[in-house]
């Protein structure tokens, strides 16, 4: 029974991740007074794309074709290291948080190469901006993980979010609230949401992620969209793991549903933030990320006492 529940949770994540994109779009439509696309729209889109052929640019070579599969493989592997509420992760070892962050970096490396392979100035622009944001966001993510590690005394994601059994909140609640807030900012940056990037526009001046996938089509675009949905789930699972009420009985099967509910609430919150805020000027993004880094440093200084 020990391995079945975690594997079941991974299966639920694989099936339910595209639903989160649907929830976000539905919330945005609600705020805009529209009916909006169906909740299962991303499933239909992925299915439609998988049935299509492919059109490749003549300029591209091997690396354009390598980008989507390797990216999806990396994000898929990262999924196995996240614990699910009260259940431990499928795989864990000391230091797996470093591997986790670098798997996301692998996806970014191959997506940048695929973008530069097309020889298009749009995609180069998106790749350059993505590189800029990632430098700061990865540093902030590591600082957050450092705070969580110092607070929980563990060097594995499993230990930090799950096995501590809620002990982490007894250390210092205000510090962890700040950490949850910073993790949410990282979620917004890494998933290219407002205020960092607008997933709705498809003009080269306002987008970072959408423009990197401009020349992909068919099965490649399906893989990219699915990998983005998985990435949202993974990065939402980090603050969800911190916020999960561990006081509940850990054997209760509804725990998985509760965890799913927290991630869905994160999606709803993202939809509200996207409807309420405008995209930041590109010059302001590093300032916001520096502020996030400063918040994690403040949390660390408070923990050190």
């Amino acid at each position, binding site marked *: 029974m020990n391995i079945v529940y975690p594997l079941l949770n991974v299966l639920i994540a694989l099936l339910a991740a595209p639903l989160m994109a649907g929830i976000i779009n539905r919330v945005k439509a609600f705020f805009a007074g529209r009916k909006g696309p169906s909740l299962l729209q991303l499933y239909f889109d992925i299915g439609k794309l998988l049935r299509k052929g492919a059109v490749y640019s003549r300029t591209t070579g091997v690396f354009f074709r390598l980008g989507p599969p390797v990216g999806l493989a990396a994000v898929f592997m990262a999924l196995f290291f996240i614990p699910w509420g009260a259940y431990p992760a499928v795989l864990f070892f000391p230091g797996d948080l470093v591997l986790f962050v670098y798997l996301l970096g692998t996806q970014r490396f191959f997506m940048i190469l695929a973008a530069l392979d097309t020889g298009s100035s749009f995609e180069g622009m998106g790749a350059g901006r993505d590189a800029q944001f990632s430098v700061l966001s990865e540093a902030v993510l590591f600082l957050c993980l450092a705070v969580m590690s110092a607070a929980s005394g563990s060097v594995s994601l499993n230990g930090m979010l799950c096995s501590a059994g809620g002990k982490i909140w007894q250390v210092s609640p205000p510090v962890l609230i700040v950490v949850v807030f910073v993790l949410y900012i990282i979620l917004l940056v890494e998933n290219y949401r407002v205020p960092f990037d607008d997933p709705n526009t498809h003009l080269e001046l306002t987008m970072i992620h959408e423009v990197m996938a401009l020349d992909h089509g068919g099965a490649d675009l399906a893989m990219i969209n699915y990998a983005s949905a998985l990435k949202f789930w993974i990065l939402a699972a980090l603050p969800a793991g911190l916020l999960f009420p561990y006081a509940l009985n850990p054997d209760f099967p509804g725990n998985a549903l509760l965890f799913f509910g927290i991630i869905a609430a994160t999606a709803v919150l993202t939809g509200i933030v996207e409807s309420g805020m405008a995209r930041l000027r590109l010059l302001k993004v590093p300032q916001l990320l*520096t*502020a996030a880094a*400063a*918040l994690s440093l*403040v949390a660390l200084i*408070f923990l*050190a006492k």
Partner: protein
Amino acid sequence: MLDGILMLLVLLNLFSLGSTRISASIRVVAYQGAAIGLVPLFLRGKIPGTMLLGIVFVTLLVKAVLLPGFLRYAQKRVNVRREEKTFVGVSTSILCGVAALGVAFFISSRLPLPFATASPFIVPVALSVSLTGSFIIISRAQALSQVIGYLILENGIYLFGIALFLEQPLLVELGMLLDVFVGVFVMGITIFHINREFEHTDTSRLSGLADWLPEERSLE
């Protein structure tokens, strides 16, 4: 709960360092004043209940309502929207704020108090608020930003005073509030006069008043 308020004070510090809009800074001063006004409710002191409530009420009134209101009136008269010229960039200011917090923690660990305070974080946070206030005074050029920095500095000193001298509240409170009021009053008058005379309140251009300059520097 007290720790939460202290963390909120630190976050407000960072926010004031990170924004160049004057109205946002005034709002930060108001929230900080409100938070500091509520701090005495969480300290365990030997004061009877009504006196404590009176102190809290007066502090909230002055720090969170009157002074920010006066600043907003001054802002409207002078018609300054944002800080055009900071000597240090925004990101660097935020990182200096974090460094100030670290320095404050270091200083407070080296200077332990002879008696125990309600929370180990009060003294470092008070020091960091004062350091942030002085940093704002040093790094901004607008006269209104200087007043805001001065108010944040006074907030820090006031927090320090509450933590230590709660036994004799009346004297401390009166001294603090009078100090602040006089400072703001004088600065307010000065700002109006500067503005009326020169049609701007950029203090970095005050050196144009000198007859004698060490080298040739043209007035822009």
